[in-house]
């Protein structure tokens, strides 16, 4: 197991380096002088030159690359051009809100999606199955900001069951939970729909296998066949999808945070875009990708734990 973990960790290193390189290139291929873009066309030549020196843009490209990569790997993403505070500090202050939202949506997606998917598979082509398929197709088609606005209108403004603004007090767990419900439903809806579909088809596939027939022939009760033999095998594709989907959740949390006016990475990224804070954008892009690489790593490891065959491969 340790060898398996070490191998996976090593494999993540080139991905991280490549991610850093791509971020470096994307930020550098912007047409025009970044200093002028930041300061505006009216800036004096001296001011632009001073900013270039401050950003290290007057150094040779390879020096810039080396500085960027070595700083990023030691957790130093520089300082925001607008507030002057370290990027990691700014991100750290709101990260709990984004993690709350992403985790809550993920849990919701799994808690709703897996049982509904199994239920639909067990009642294949019956009314329940058709309903699950139609509803999951609709859920999958909801843009996150649209589901957010609809939920806000219904449960926030019309029935007034949940708060409209989601700026939670982090030290108060009840307040935190109360304010995350609506955004998490909006964000988790698509995931629940997706997991329903994957669970359904994985379960159908598993239930068609020979070992299920063998188990039935041996006289194993149907309930046990479904939950032990079927689900154990059907869970592998589901885990993969959950892992892949966390990346999408993190990306879509930007929209949820705008609709529900929640603090978080999304709010920071939109602020940085509006204020042309390139240092912040670069740092955020790296942090986003780090998060996703870590999630992929965890998924891989989980896969190894759940399926002994993966470890041996």
């Amino acid at each position, binding site marked *: 197991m340790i060898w398996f973990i070490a191998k996976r960790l090593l494999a993540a290193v080139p991905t991280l380096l490549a991610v850093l390189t791509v971020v470096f290139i994307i930020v550098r291929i912007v047409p025009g002088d970044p200093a002028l873009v930041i300061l505006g066309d009216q800036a004096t030549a001296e001011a632009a030159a001073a900013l270039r020196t401050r950003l290290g843009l007057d150094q040779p490209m390879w020096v810039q690359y080396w500085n960027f990569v070595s700083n990023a790997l030691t957790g130093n993403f520089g300082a925001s051009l607008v507030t002057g505070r370290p990027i990691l500090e700014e991100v750290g202050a709101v990260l709990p809100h984004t993690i709350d939202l992403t985790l809550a949506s993920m849990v919701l997606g799994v808690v709703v999606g897996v049982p509904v998917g199994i239920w639909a598979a067990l009642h294949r082509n019956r009314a329940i199955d058709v309903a699950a398929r139609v509803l999951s197709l609709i859920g999958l088609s909801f843009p996150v900001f649209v589901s957010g606005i609809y939920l806000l209108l219904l449960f926030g403004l019309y029935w007034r069951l949940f708060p409209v603004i989601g700026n939670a007090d982090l030290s108060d767990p009840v307040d935190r939970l109360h304010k995350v419900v609506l955004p998490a439903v909006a964000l988790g809806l698509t995931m629940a729909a997706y997991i329903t579909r994957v669970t359904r088809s994985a379960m159908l596939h598993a239930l068609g296998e020979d070992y299920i027939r063998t188990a039935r022939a041996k006289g194993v009760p149907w309930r046990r066949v479904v939950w032990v033999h079927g689900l154990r095998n059907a869970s592998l594709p589901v885990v993969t999808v959950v892992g892949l989907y966390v990346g999408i959740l993190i990306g879509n949390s930007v929209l949820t945070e705008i609709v529900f006016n929640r603090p978080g990475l999304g709010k920071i990224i*939109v602020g940085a875009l509006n204020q042309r804070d390139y240092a912040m954008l670069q740092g955020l892009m790296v942090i986003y990708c780090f998060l996703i690489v870590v999630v992929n790593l965890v998924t891989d490891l989980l896969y190894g734990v759940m399926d002994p065959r993966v470890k041996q491969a």
Partner: protein
Amino acid sequence: MSATAEAPAVPRMPGWRKALGKARSNPTTLIGAVICLVILAAAILAPWIAPHDPAEQDIMTRLAAPGGDYPLGTDQFGRDILSRLLWGARISLTVSLGAIAVACVIGGTIGMVSGYIGGRFDLFVMQVMDVMLSFPSLILGLIVVALLGPDLVNLVVAIALTAIAPFARIARAPTLALKERAFIEAGHALGYSHLRIIFRHILPNILPEVMVMTSLWMATAVRVEASLSFIGLGVKPPTPTWGGMTRDGFENILDSPWLAVFPGFAILLLVLGLNMVGDGLRDATDPKLRNE
């Protein structure tokens, strides 16, 4: 005899025609196709069927409720929502069609060439694609548009960038299997160029799988375009976009909730239609499901 006449017949995907027939008889695909066609027709006919000019402002009828002269109401500048929705369909469809066409051609070529060449080259290319996949598509699109500036072409570029890697993956997998087949070997023996083998003999065989994905990815492209417009990085006002209209409506949500509800519903409907078509096509071309 010319080389073309001797060329081994390209074996068509077995059941491609049958699959299309099956897709046609599938209610999901049919309903989805009708939704997509209606929206497409609305976009094309917008100049003739829109009751008002989408940019025409009428301060006297600001934020009018749906009904009467304005079937879906008016926005904060007194512009007709229905007319703006009809015109907005053009942006959604143009951007998503453009982006997916670009991604399909570039990604598909990368996937086919990479799978065909194989070996370390293939390994390297797929590693690069994996890195591209590790950027959340909305974040990548957001940053690219922010850096290049929000206009129609840059939106297409940004959204295409997020979809290249998946298309490369989709094109590569069947290429790997196809290149071992006898008719490709025969092509080699006849001295065909690699380009000819890839584009004349492999491409027609992977087309069905790629086409199925186009519909599903177009749904994603519509969603990303709408999301970018909602954030304020879409095609600039006063051009109506569904995402931008939802944003405007959201800002007036307390007075006139319908302003956000209608454009949001339009986006939902188009994405749903595309997903339904893609789903039906996939079920029809999936060999595992075909015989059921």
